[in-house]
């Protein structure tokens, strides 16, 4: 497929994602929604810390920043996971356009990436709002002059590739079945990352068997790299985490392409592209 065809499909998929996901109400209500949701999610973990520090013995103030940064950037994971399985389900069953997209020369892979990118952009806005709220209102000890922006940017880019790869696997599953609920599966997978990837607590707090799981998930290293970038940790340490992140991301990316290809074949073989299941 020519590069400009890919770019065009991608661009219009992003446009479509924005239109479908953001255009459901007037701008003011959408703005309120975009602000309240991430802040409410953040306040839950902030208060978990505050309550824990009042009743518990560990009152390390750095842990609050740890929790804050982890939970804030996790918004990207949750939103993209949820949306990528849901896109297939919605397009197939609600809008009945999946088959129209399928029979066009546009690549399904590029289309899904475009929709994921659209979600990522909206999620990044939520992340920015949360960070702003945390620093300005909750007085989080984040010094914007200490942030290693280059490392943060690189971590985010590689991390988004990793997250999208998992999202592609979810979309592939959604191509084959609606039984388990497209959104539910996405939430479940996001839940696995939430627990095992050091989002709210160091992975060393997990039992040994769970730590093994953490070590093979790329998002564990993503969390470490993002946190380190936000708190201005030295480049050598961040680069190590970014390198491992990149390596694991590469593996999962290749796996996701294979899974999508297989799902595409199976969906066409079983005639699933245009089914309606009423799920």
């Amino acid at each position, binding site marked *: 497929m020519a590069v400009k065809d890919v770019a065009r499909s991608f661009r219009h998929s992003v446009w479509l994602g924005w*239109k479908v996901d953001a255009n459901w109400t007037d701008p003011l209500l959408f703005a309120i929604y975009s602000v309240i949701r991430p802040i409410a999610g953040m306040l839950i973990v902030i208060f978990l810390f505050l309550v824990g520090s009042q009743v518990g013995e560990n009152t390390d103030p750095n842990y609050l920043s740890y929790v804050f940064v982890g939970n804030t950037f996790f918004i990207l994971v949750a939103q993209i996971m949820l949306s990528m399985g849901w896109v297939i389900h919605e397009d197939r069953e609600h809008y009945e356009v999946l088959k129209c997209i*399928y029979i*066009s020369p546009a690549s399904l892979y590029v289309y899904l990436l475009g929709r994921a990118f659209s979600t990522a952009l909206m999620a990044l806005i939520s992340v920015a709002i949360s960070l702003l709220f945390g620093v300005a209102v909750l007085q989080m000890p984040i010094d914007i002059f200490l942030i290693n922006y280059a490392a943060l940017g690189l971590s985010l880019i590689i991390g988004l590739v990793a997250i999208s790869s998992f999202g592609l696997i979810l979309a592939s599953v959604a191509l084959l079945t609606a039984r388990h609920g497209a959104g539910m599966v996405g939430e479940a997978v996001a839940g696995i990352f939430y627990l095992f990837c050091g989002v709210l607590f160091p992975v060393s707090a997990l039992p040994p068997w769970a730590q093994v799981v953490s070590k093979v998930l790329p998002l564990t290293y993503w969390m470490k790299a993002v946190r380190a970038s936000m708190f201005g940790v030295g480049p050598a340490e961040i680069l190590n985490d970014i390198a491992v992140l990149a390596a694991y991301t590469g593996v999962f990316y290749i796996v996701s392409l294979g899974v999508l290809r297989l799902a595409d074949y199976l969906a066409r073989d079983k005639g699933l592209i245009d089914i309606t299941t009423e799920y």
Partner: protein
Amino acid sequence: MENSVETRNVSRIFKSGRNGGSARIVKALDEVNLKIRTGELFGLLGPNGAGKTTLIKILCTLLLPSSGSAFVRGHDVVKEANSVRRKINMVTGGETPGYGILTVSENLWFFSQLYGIRGDVAKPRVKELLETVGLEDQTKTRMNRLSSGMKQRLNVARGFINDPEVLFLDEPTLGLDVLSAKHIRGYIRNWVNTQPEKTVLLTTHYMAEADELCDRVGIIHEGRVVACDKPSSLKAMVKDKTVFQFDVAGGGDYTKLKTIKGVVGLSWTHRIESDTSTLKLVLSDQGVASEIESALKISGSRILSISTPEPTLEDVFIHLVGKGLE
């Protein structure tokens, strides 16, 4: 290229049944061989469940055949799916794909971009197509605000957005009002007439539509193509047979008439509003008609009229299959 669409022994089997139930195997297509010439408007006629939609899905690369091979514009639909997709489009009647939250023009615009159509070409084409289907006043209306007929017209417009080389129309006028359906048929016919390199495969169970529009018609029954020729040639198949039409009062089950020797095929329809039935019989010779008349009188049916209409494609179907298109 002589043939735009070609199938070679295409079969498709579906297995259904799970959760403890016994598996059911359905042979939706059974060694279908078809050649559709470039520039042809080809009709595929058959009742519901005959395999028309299954065949279209295979040719559109949505479904893989269980065996056999199929080619669109020389490209294998399985191995060269992307090449096929550049040259085709499909419209399924009775469906209204589209994003409710987008406007009419935004929906068409999005689909144009999936085909990589440049903006300066896409914009006037969107405008022209909306005028063609009578939606030029609804350009800025969100799709979820359209009536079902309007959504279907938008669906038809979507089918032409990329000016495909091969267009698959799966019962495109299903659910449209009479005037809209007539208008769409006229547009399709004109589209093929004025562009000899375009090809259309149209499936329908409306005999009159196939008769009016198609250069050639294939009749499909239980997954097999039982006949394929020009409408006039197909009708000539029943030339040596006689087609009789009986209009009777009331309704009933006339299946027993099939047991009369000389009855090749039978179909009937009952009109509730007038409580009358029209029986169409394909007979081996005229003499059988009097036996039919006697049988109806004996069973208590009051015959209102008897006529010998010109053979139609339905009569051809009855002749080939033994019953009508229920």
